[in-house]
């Protein structure tokens, strides 16, 4: 089933069309709960001709675009929400060769907004990548994809071919397939892989950069699509792309920035079974919030951050009343432990230890000191990896202890929730 109306969460067009602004998606889509962004109804990507009719040709990318990004207050939509202008300026300062990587390796298991964007509007993403490459004088421009996201790759390949045939004056853009792994989208790993090294995260703190060292700008594909709007002087930050996961399905929708979360879920049909007990924000690398504390909060990163929450890559997953938050968290943390790059001891050993404790708790088979051990291990792991992977896991667990505190106590006493054996979140299978 498909949501037929185009971008129905965006304000209705008014006489002053600039108030509405262009949408990134051609329409909202309904997807199955697992896998990449293959819609239940597939329709063709916007062609180059349609793209040009809607947006016109892109201007040439110049260093002045950085100032425009700054004015537009464009932040990174891969999840970290770092101002784009900050990263572009760092690339401009680099005196070595620059590579620009459009990051479409959407590795958060719930997320599908980047894949949906690439399937619907590949030309807007390629415009953004080309603009960034020109503005930064990059020697190399890459679209980086998750290894098994065939749909995104085919869409981007077709779009590149259309541009080539039309004789577009684009810089050379190549598509690179990363691994099919949770860390495939990790920026420092992409940087290392593109410079010929292993696809592994590198140390967070680096020494003073070597003169003439290569520099890689990794920017999420949604961010680049928005940069392509900024370059055309179009409003670029009035909407946000979200993936909403319900017990039945998954939707990728585009909503006006700042509407309350309860409205997003209600319009996505996620409240038909009643109000949820909690909401997972930001996916496996995100955190739980209680329904009471999050329902009326605006779906906008700054508003979320004021209450120590975050949308991450725009993932919202309400948890039904009957489900067991402890078991859901245990299943996610097991996956995160399996997805460790296994480079740093505290992550390689700490995440499996955390996953084991959570599993025992979830099953109601916890040792007497299990909860205390879990809390000790959280402290032991946090901040001790080279990348943010272990910190994402500990943050998720800490939020679960807070949000599902009463359930955790019941589980620890050997009285697990009736639904503990049937976690509902889509956790990818791992072959070990």
């Amino acid at each position, binding site marked *: 089933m498909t949501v037929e109306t185009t971008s129905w969460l965006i304000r209705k067009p008014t006489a002053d069309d600039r108030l509405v602004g262009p949408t990134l998606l051609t329409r909202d889509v309904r997807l199955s709960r697992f896998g990449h962004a293959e819609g239940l109804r597939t329709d063709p990507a916007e062609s180059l001709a349609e793209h040009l009719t809607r947006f016109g040709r892109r201007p040439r990318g110049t260093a002045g675009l950085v100032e425009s990004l700054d004015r537009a207050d464009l932040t990174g939509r891969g999840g970290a929400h770092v101002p784009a202008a900050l990263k572009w300026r760092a690339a401009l300062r680099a005196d070595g060769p620059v590579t620009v990587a459009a990051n479409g390796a959407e590795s958060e298991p719930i997320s599908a907004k980047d894949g949906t964007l690439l399937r619907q509007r590949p030309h807007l993403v390629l415009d953004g990548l080309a603009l960034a490459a020109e503005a930064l004088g990059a020697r190399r421009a890459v679209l980086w994809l998750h290894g098994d996201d065939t749909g995104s790759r085919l869409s981007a390949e077709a779009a590149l071919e259309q541009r080539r045939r039309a004789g577009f004056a684009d810089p050379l853009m190549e598509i690179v397939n990363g691994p099919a792994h949770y860390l495939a989208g990790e920026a420092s790993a992409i940087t290392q892989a593109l410079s010929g090294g292993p696809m592994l995260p590198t140390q*967070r703190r680096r020494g003073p950069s070597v003169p003439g060292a290569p520099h890689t700008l990794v920017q999420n594909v949604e961010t680049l699509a928005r940069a392509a709007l900024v370059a055309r002087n179009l409003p670029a930050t009035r909407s946000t792309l979200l993936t909403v996961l319900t017990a039945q399905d998954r939707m990728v929708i585009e909503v006006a920035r700042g509407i309350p979360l309860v409205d997003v879920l209600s319009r996505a049909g996620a409240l038909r079974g009643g109000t949820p007990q909690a909401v997972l924000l930001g996916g496996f690398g995100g955190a739980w919030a209680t329904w009471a504390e999050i329902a009326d909060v605006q779906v906008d990163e700054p508003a979320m951050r004021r209450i120590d929450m975050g949308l991450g890559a725009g993932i919202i997953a309400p948890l039904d009343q009957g489900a067991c938050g402890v078991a859901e968290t245990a299943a996610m943390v097991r996956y995160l432990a399996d997805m460790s790059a296994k480079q*740093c*001891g505290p992550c390689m*050993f700490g995440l499996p230890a955390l996953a084991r404790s959570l599993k025992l708790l979830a099953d109601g088979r916890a040792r007497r000191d299990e909860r205390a051990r879990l809390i000790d291990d959280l*402290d032991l792991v946090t901040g001790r990896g080279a990348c943010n992977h272990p910190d994402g896991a500990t943050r998720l667990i800490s939020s679960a202890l807070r949000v599902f505190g009463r359930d955790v106590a019941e589980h620890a006493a050997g009285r697990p929730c009736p639904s503990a054996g049937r976690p509902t979140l889509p956790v990818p299978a791992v072959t070990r």
Partner: protein
Amino acid sequence: MKGALAGSESGSARVRLQVDPVACDGVGLCAHLAPSVVDLDRWGYPILADRDLGRREKAAARRAVRGCPKRALRLDGPQ
């Protein structure tokens, strides 16, 4: 523990022992060479004192840096 890596980013004038968690293999020699500065967690990986080091501690930390077979330790700040 949370500040084990963060301190060096502030550019403060403090002298701190730092570990590269990727290079570290949990050999544990550092905890013998600089017991006042290094503890080991239950998996054998170093937990470094999150504070400015005194003169004797600095000397011990230098021994740990030199002794690490994986070259995973370094001393940051004015020496």
